[in-house]
């Protein structure tokens, strides 16, 4: 008998496309948050497939903290041109005026001002009622309980006591004016799934994911890349050139690199299958305090 089953990648792909289409059909004004990372890249690719041959019926939004890696901004511009999708870029200008940086405010405060507040500003400004995010449940323990449709109140707060049960593929996106939902089409993907998919579909990624010689400094056990002259070097610190890559990408002063020889996607996958470290390890933002993700989510961070 013929096997009429889907491989796990095809099944995940179908599920994500279903979610993206549901939002486009039921919500008044959706937006897709585009962080330029590998997950965002996979999500954008899925959105293109969901509506092909028609164009993606909603804009992309990048919340730019002004501290992103330069290579990220280059890929953002390239993808905007290639896909023809409307690319909105939002920066918290108040934060910029006040000179907000990871160094002046500390990571927690900085993230709040330049990411969380900026995102809220952007969503309010455009009046979006649904925002796609590329978060996955396997990323971090607190994400394991997140819904695909995550409900937010008028002030973008995530109320953990007021989330809707999700059964089958019947998503409840009903909101009142001012309320919104965050939608996570990649909920059931693992990091390995994303890489396998990027490989299979030849999805463009920021070159920083691939190992190359880069100038880094060692700081609190992490390898921080000197991406531009704004990184204040501490006394005795001199950048050294190491063969490194990044498992996740964010603001460069907050993102730790790992030493690696994986300079192609198959090699990354190979390395990951053999790896014994989770990807969140390089994210300084999670280490601030126990349960910090829960806190940030409540405030409206993704």
């Amino acid at each position, binding site marked *: 008998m013929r096997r009429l089953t889907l491989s796990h990648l095809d099944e995940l792909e*179908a599920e994500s496309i279903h979610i993206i289409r549901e939002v486009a059909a039921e919500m008044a004004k959706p937006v897709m948050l585009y962080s330029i990372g590998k997950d965002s890249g996979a999500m954008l690719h899925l959105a293109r497939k969901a509506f092909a*041959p028609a164009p993606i019926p909603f804009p992309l939004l990048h919340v730019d903290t002004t501290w992103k890696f330069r290579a990220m901004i280059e890929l953002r511009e390239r993808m905007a041109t290639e896909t023809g999708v409307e690319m909105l870029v939002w920066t918290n200008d108040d934060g910029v005026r006040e000179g907000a940086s990871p160094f002046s405010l500390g990571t927690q405060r900085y993230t709040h001002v330049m990411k969380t507040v900026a995102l809220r500003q952007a969503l309010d400004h455009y009046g979006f009622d649904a925002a796609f995010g590329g978060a996955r449940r396997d990323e971090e323990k607190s994400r394991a309980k997140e819904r695909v449709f995550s409900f937010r109140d008028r002030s973008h707060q995530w109320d953990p006591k007021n989330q809707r049960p999700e059964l089958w593929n019947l998503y409840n996106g009903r909101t009142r004016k001012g309320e919104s939902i965050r939608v996570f089409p990649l909920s*059931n993907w693992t990091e390995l799934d994303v890489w396998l998919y990027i490989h299979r579909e030849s999805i463009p990624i920021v070159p920083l994911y691939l190992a190359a010689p880069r100038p880094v400094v060692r700081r609190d056990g992490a390898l921080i890349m000197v991406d531009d002259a704004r990184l204040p070097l501490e006394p005795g610190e001199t950048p050294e050139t190491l063969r490194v890559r990044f498992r996740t990408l964010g603001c460069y002063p907050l993102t730790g690199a790992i030493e690696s020889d994986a300079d192609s996607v198959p090699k990354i996958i190979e390395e990951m299958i053999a790896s014994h470290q989770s990807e969140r390890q390089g994210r300084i933002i999670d280490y601030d305090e126990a349960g910090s993700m829960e806190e940030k989510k409540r405030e409206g961070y993704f």
Partner: protein
Amino acid sequence: MTDILTRYESRDTLRFLTCGSVDDGKSTLIGRMLYDSGAAYDDQLDAARRATRKRGAFDGDLDFSFLVDGLEAEREQGITIDVAWRYFSTARRNFIIADTPGHVQYTRNMATGASHCNLAVILVDARLGVLPQTRRHAFVASLLGIRHLVVAVNKMDAVDWSEESFDAIRAEVSDFAARLQYSDLEFVPVSALRGDNVVHRSERMPWYEGRPLLDLLENVHVASDANLIDFRLPVQLVLRASTASRAYAGTIASGVIRTGDRVAVLPSMRETRVVSIAAPGGPIDEAHAPMAVAMTLADEVDVSRGDVLAPPNNVPELTRELEAMVVWMSERTAARGGDYMLKQGTAQVPATLAEIRYRTNVDTLRREDASQLALNEIGRVRIEASRALAIDPYARNRATGAFILIDRITNETAGAGMIIARETALHASSHRVAIDARTNVHAKKALVSREEKALLTRQTPFVVWLTGLPRSGKSSIACALEKALYDRGMLTQVLDGENLRLGLSADLGFSLADRREAARRAAEAARLVCGLGAVAIVALVSPSAGDREAARQSLGELPFVEVFCDAPLEVCEARDSDHLFERARAGELFNVTGIDLPYERPEEPELVLATDRESVEDNVARVVKLLVQRGLVR
């Protein structure tokens, strides 16, 4: 390397549910599975070791339960956790675990998790044996359509690896699981703490010859659970490319479709043909569930979101009325007359909770009268939607047989519903054909009348119609009456409901509509019997007063004697030698008169027999006496 990629890409996924409370060692079991299969990362293990040391109560360096975030902590903080999702994979398979808490009030969470899964792992503590919650878990998982159940009997180390303890639990669970809908039931004795039979085979239980838990999960065959027979595509949205053509996008809910196939659009029932199918990977000639596709159609038919595409010769039922089991998920109690938004497939329509038929007690599986359904309660309801929906029974199609009810005030998801078969589309269409045919048919006049034939049999043709609950004694009386009349030299024919279902009415089910048809056929058969100048004795539950009246009317001038076999339900249930009522009470059979289908007592029958108190002989004597009084029997 290419090999690795191909292998990893082409593995399938098993989504399974774990249920049980922290005390059963569920977190430890999941943590152990992640650890022993190499799915836990070093930094996660370090964090778990730190947590183990901090807690200090554990006699080892790693408490595996810390690898998974306990649900209990959040519960104490008052956070609503319904399902915690875990991901891991082995060389054979990808696994997605829906981990649900196992406490009394968590029926809602279990239902939520189960709706995504093909298999359930239920934990039983070997020391405590089967608890009420074990039954509850097995029932809810079965109700949600899970067909594969694995019972992990944990803490075998604490019962000295005792085969007897394991066997006792296996016997007890097997017994009640047999009344549920599982096609596949497995038992594994494990010690999550020590790692026995989780990933690696235990050497301490040589008496167990089966596979370790992970081995079972890697090899269970769930592909055949998918419905690949009934093609259904609930349309999500209409895509308009720059060209004039439209593509209809959606996820195939069930079945297979090929280019060139004919499809009907529901509810309009307009027919057309599939021209092209676009899958995520490009155009294809054949697609199946659960692929996300976009199809173009041959004709300019009106198709919009909420419509369903299906083969013209196999369409879902189109109805505004739904019979369903619902799991209630809201603090706001469900009551008759409640208004909701109903989402089924891609359709979303206003709907009213028209009736609560009963509540199922999840501990006893008994049906209870109920006017309301509270949070975590399960009941059978009738729902009226504001427009017709294309539905299938949940038992046949999990995708088109499921719905959610959304509270129109709070917008919360208030209920989860599973549709019960009421009247199949096939019957609806055969009824339509029958009506169409009748318009051009005229009765032919016979040359020999019924009265003339009765001169040969020297008796008056008439109909005795015995009605009453199942097991109320109708058939016994029918047979004894036939004997009594035969002894008086009369020709009779018993038309017994159950016998008719073996032949004339073999195609009918037990829905109200099918019962109406069964009564109509019994009346028609009685007419033929009377046409021979004989007496027809019908023994049929015929619960609907309307159906019995229709039978009387259809027989026109033939004498019609309605006899009510009146025995209380308890008495009928006590006579339940073939477990009809028992299975109905267990939720295994539906539409059983007296249980979930009401019996309408005759208001003015010709005769009432107390079949619980009087003997069959006495009752038959009373019938004969009445027939004599009426001049039908000499």
